[in-house]
């Protein structure tokens, strides 16, 4: 098992804020919109450096998405910023018609996704957004796992001509990916080579999966660990190759089981390579108030849940 050095803890949303500032310096077509959450989205650096390219939409997300579609029509590259809940469910029809169907080069950047939003509770803890967004034709869906990956993804998506949903979160989280990485949309990161079970993880659950793989390694179980940061388009090849080798799969994500990464992986395996699969995800319920780690524990998204799922998957081979 590869040992990862943790380079401190930082929130993924800061990766977005720092990435936005950097990509805006490189590309003068990048503009930003925010719906009254500039501080939470860490967009102040961009806003202060490029005030003429920042638009405060107020608490009016539908108009923000529509204006982003208009800015893209005019040839610019708009990044919208608000919480994941207000970036998706609240504005689904606006995204569907004005962005996805209209092929607009809009980057929908969504913070505070999932349970780890914490104390604000279920109204804000969206667990359905990946499903909502991956169902839309033309939409690319990305869920990053740490500060460095989020920063790299924020920069990379400017070069992709088309709508993107970029999902990240609120809590401080271990930084374990390469600071100088090149982010390639749709290309899985092979975190660890192993042979007994495949763990396919996205977002905050990648670090939890590394912890689980270390525990499993101590038990003599070798984990093939894959980070799928791009849920759509899915890296079919990386998943099939791993499943062919290990013959059992666990998926891990901070999302509903319905419509999430596990759902995409199961669909792929069902069509191409039927394989036993266990899913670590929220099972058809809303979240609640609490501390991030308490919530992950209560809703079955802890390190131990991944270990148990891996053992169960191996037992089904």
């Amino acid at each position: 098992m590869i040992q990862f050095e943790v380079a401190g803890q930082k929130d993924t949303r800061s990766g977005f804020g720092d990435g936005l500032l950097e990509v805006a310096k490189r590309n003068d077509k990048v503009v930003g919109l925010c719906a009254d959450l500039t501080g939470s989205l860490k967009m102040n650096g961009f806003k202060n450096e490029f005030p003429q390219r920042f638009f405060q939409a107020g608490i009016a997300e539908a108009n923000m998405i529509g204006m982003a579609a208009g800015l893209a029509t005019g040839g610019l590259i708009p990044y919208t910023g608000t919480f994941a809940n207000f970036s998706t469910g609240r504005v689904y029809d606006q995204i569907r018609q004005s962005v996805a169907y209209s092929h607009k080069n809009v980057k929908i950047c969504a913070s505070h996704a999932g349970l780890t939003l914490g104390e604000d509770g279920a109204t804000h803890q969206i667990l359905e957004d990946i499903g909502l967004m991956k169902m839309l034709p033309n939409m690319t869906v990305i869920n990053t796992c740490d500060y460095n990956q989020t920063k790299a993804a924020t920069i990379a998506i400017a070069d992709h001509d088309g709508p993107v949903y970029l999902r990240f979160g609120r809590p401080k989280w271990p930084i374990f990916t390469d600071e100088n990485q090149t982010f390639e949309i749709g290309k899985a990161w092979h975190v660890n080579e192993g042979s007994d079970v495949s763990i396919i993880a996205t977002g905050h659950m990648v670090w939890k999966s590394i912890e689980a793989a270390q525990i499993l390694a101590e038990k003599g179980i070798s984990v093939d660990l894959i980070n799928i940061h791009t849920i759509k388009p899915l890296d079919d090849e990386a998943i099939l190759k791993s499943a062919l080798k290990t013959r059992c799969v666990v998926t891990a994500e901070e999302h509903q089981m319905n419509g999430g990464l596990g759902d995409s992986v199961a669909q792929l395996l069902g069509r191409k390579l039927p394989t036993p699969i266990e899913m670590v995800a929220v099972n058809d319920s809303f979240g609640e108030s609490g501390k991030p780690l308490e919530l992950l524990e209560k809703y079955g998204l802890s390190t131990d849940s991944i270990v148990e799922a891996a053992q169960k998957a191996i037992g089904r081979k």
Partner: protein
Amino acid sequence: MVHAVQSGHPGGSLGCTEFFVAMYFNVLDYQAKPFSKTGENEDVFILSNGHISPVYYSTMARAGIFEVNELNTFRKIDSRLQGHPATEEGLEGVRIASGSLGQGLSVATGVALSKRVKGDDHWVYCLCGDGELQEGQNWEAIMFAGHNRVDNLILTVDFNQQQIDGSTVDIMGFSELGSKFEAFGWKVLSMNGNDLSDVLSTMREAQAAGKQGQPVAIIMRTEMGNGVDFMMGSHEWHGIAPNDEQLESALAQNPETLGDY
């Protein structure tokens, strides 16, 4: 077009015919060919009430943006002329899909902002329906454009006072619509949309009123189904097609009909 496929929206289309002719043959500063997707360095028109696609397509074809005979394909399988306008098949002239109501003014505001960022002093025009103003997103955009002084934006509201279920007066009235816009910081004009000379002069007036710190709204009174006696004064012709007999009667009332496709 609507008769040929027995589906579509003739009422609002006929009510806005003079407006579209004025825009595409006089008011808009644009190049018909080649079509510029971004509309940089030209005026941009955004249609919000996409269901009046018959008049939108007809005018653009006759303005030379695409071939007139393509109008034959309207609403048929494999056509670029979808029931509601779309960009999916690359139809020249269309920059954004519309159909689900209430979204066009936000898009037009965004295009206007893009021109501000790029230092392009061309206009952005938007047309929406009056019933469509019941969608709350419009008021988000109206509030934004007023507050941010988006003064290269000219919105026209097709004030025909009809919607699918009846008169807007009965369903959700718009008393003092002009005052509502003014309260959000807009300059407001009005015109008779079925009088071509009034449309032309009011659009010039709107340009003169624009670029002075306020977006401009024009309340355009129109008659749904204008020019066809049995369609006028009723909401019934919002979204139904005429039969053979009705088509004959309608065409007889409009002898100047082009009949060129």
